[in-house]
């Protein structure tokens, strides 16, 4: 699928177009052109890294939502072996906004759960734009407990605008489903590692995100409310979303300095959407590091460490 450039990416695209043109000419043989191509490639790299090093919070929001970013099933395909998808909450239905299943990480059996967005309109309608209903969270919970029963580690991938605000979702207890997951995740006696890959949309994200380790991709975001929602409530005007994005301190860098996450996973220059392979390899490296670290703890230690991790969050005076 052709990538739509984001507004601030336009200079990169223009240079890349020039490069394509130059490469077209080079077939007519010209020694100088080779040199020109080399220089242009260098320049593109520089421009890219300059733009991406200085992204504003609201620009990061656009990158985090980019339709060409890798999604959970992409990570599963690239990082895990022998994936078998498991469906349904055993109560009402299967929710395609959350995918889950067993697989192997580095040869070891594990459980994988994550939000799933679609790449086009049809897929997005099927996936409900990655906004789970209660059944998605209950499927996740069922499989967390299954992982615990067989003493297998859990990996979760977070990328959602939020839990779906709909009539059926309310009727079937959206709040209860999220709350139940928080309580049960707190009690899990197996290692759990969470990666925020794109949008960490409030409670809908947190409901599968209470890992012993929580990692964030460099340009992903995580906040209590979307910038648009925050703007319409606090500024009474959704067009203030740029300012809300800044105020909410939603970038991976902000969250690292607030000690909410354990590590920022570097994205390839120009963002994960431009280079999936490098992204997968960076994510895999980080997962391996923390998986090996967590392996040395007993189940009681894992429970207590996770409890203390979330227990200590909050800033106040006394």
């Amino acid at each position, binding site marked *: 699928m052709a990538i739509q450039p984001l507004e601030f990416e336009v200079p990169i695209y223009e240079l890349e177009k020039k490069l394509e043109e130059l490469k077209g000419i080079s077939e007519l043989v010209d020694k100088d052109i080779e040199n020109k191509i080399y220089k242009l490639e260098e320049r593109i790299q520089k421009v890219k890294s300059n733009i991406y090093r200085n992204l504003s919070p609201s620009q990061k929001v656009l990158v985090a939502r980019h339709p060409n970013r890798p999604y959970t099933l992409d990570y599963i395909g690239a990082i895990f072996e022998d994936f078998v998808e498991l469906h349904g909450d055993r109560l009402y239905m299967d929710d395609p906004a959350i995918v889950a299943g067993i697989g192997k990480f580095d040869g070891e059996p594990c459980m994988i759960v994550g939000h799933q967005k679609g790449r086009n309109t049809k897929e997005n309608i099927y996936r409900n734009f990655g906004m789970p209903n209660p059944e998605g969270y209950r499927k996740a919970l069922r499989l967390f407990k299954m992982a615990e029963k067989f003493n297998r580690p859990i990996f979760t991938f977070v990328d959602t605008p939020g839990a779906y605000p709909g009539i059926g979702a309310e009727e079937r207890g959206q*709040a209860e489903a999220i709350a139940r997951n928080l309580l049960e995740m707190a009690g899990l006696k197996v290692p759990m590692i969470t990666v925020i890959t794109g949008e960490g949309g409030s*409670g809908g994200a947190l409901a599968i995100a209470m890992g012993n380790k929580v990692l964030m991709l460099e340009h992903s975001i995580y906040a209590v*409310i979307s910038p648009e929602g925050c703007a319409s409530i606090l500024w009474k005007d959704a067009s203030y979303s740029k300012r809300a994005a800044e105020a909410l301190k939603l970038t991976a860098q902000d969250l690292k300095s607030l000690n909410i996450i354990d590590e920022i996973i570097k994205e390839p220059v120009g963002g994960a959407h431009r280079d999936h392979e490098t992204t997968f390899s960076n994510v895999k490296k980080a997962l391996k590091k923390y998986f090996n670290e967590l392996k040395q703890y007993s189940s009681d230690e894992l429970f207590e460490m996770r409890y203390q991790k979330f227990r200590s969050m909050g800033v*106040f005076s006394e």
Partner: protein
Amino acid sequence: MGLRTFLLDKIQKVTEIKKREIQKDVWVKCDKCGEVSYKDDIQKNYNTCPSCNYHFKVSAIEKINMILDPGTFVEIDANLKSLDPLGFKDSKRYVDRIRDTVKKTGINDAFISGYGTIYKKPVHIGAFEFSFLGGSMGSVVGEKITRLIESAISNRHHVITISCSGGARMQESILSLMQMAKTSAALKKLSNEGLAHISILTDPTTGGVTASFAMLGDVHIAEPGALVGFAGPRVIEQTIRQKLPEGFQTSEFLLQHGMVDMVLHRREWKDTIYKLLEFFG
């Protein structure tokens, strides 16, 4: 008009105004059915309308006092205060908002907690104060709920929470969100200890409070007619682009959909909770 009639007329008008002012003090019009009742009668009736049972809004401490034996409430953690870790500013700086709200309400944040007795049975109890920034949950509220639960564990008491909140406090962004995890985790420990959590849902309870400890009671009691839900009605209407059905997200709706154990008039809270405590042992 002669001077005499003019004066008489004036006197009469003044007395009428005075009478009306006194009446305003004594009479209250119900927001729901429009019936006018004696303020005294309403107060004796747990601040509910004697003719339609409409539950008037009451403060956190009033709700606590409706449940505990008179004079037994001991507040804990009252000195916890919000900071402004994100340097948040919308139309007003968060620090100023907090300072002004503390001044206006006379309390330090949106949750009051402590312990007391119900027919001599000791319990831990906490309630949201809606007039403090919409009862929103930030670091202080999350910490106070967690400490309430931890204190209950060390005293081997059951816990009652009375929710009334618009949800997480936006001005503390991710830190507010993490209070959902923190309070829910504390309830996991409470549950592991064989102790109970009774969650009372009052008007309104939405967002991150509903989606964490408030929906994690062993028993859920909802106030009649209260708005209780995950997403706010406006957000849902904007998303699905249609009007919501009558009675959607009310306590009665939640009862029908199996989310609460009962919808209970305030006057019955204490006796019912006592029976539950007897069962919990």
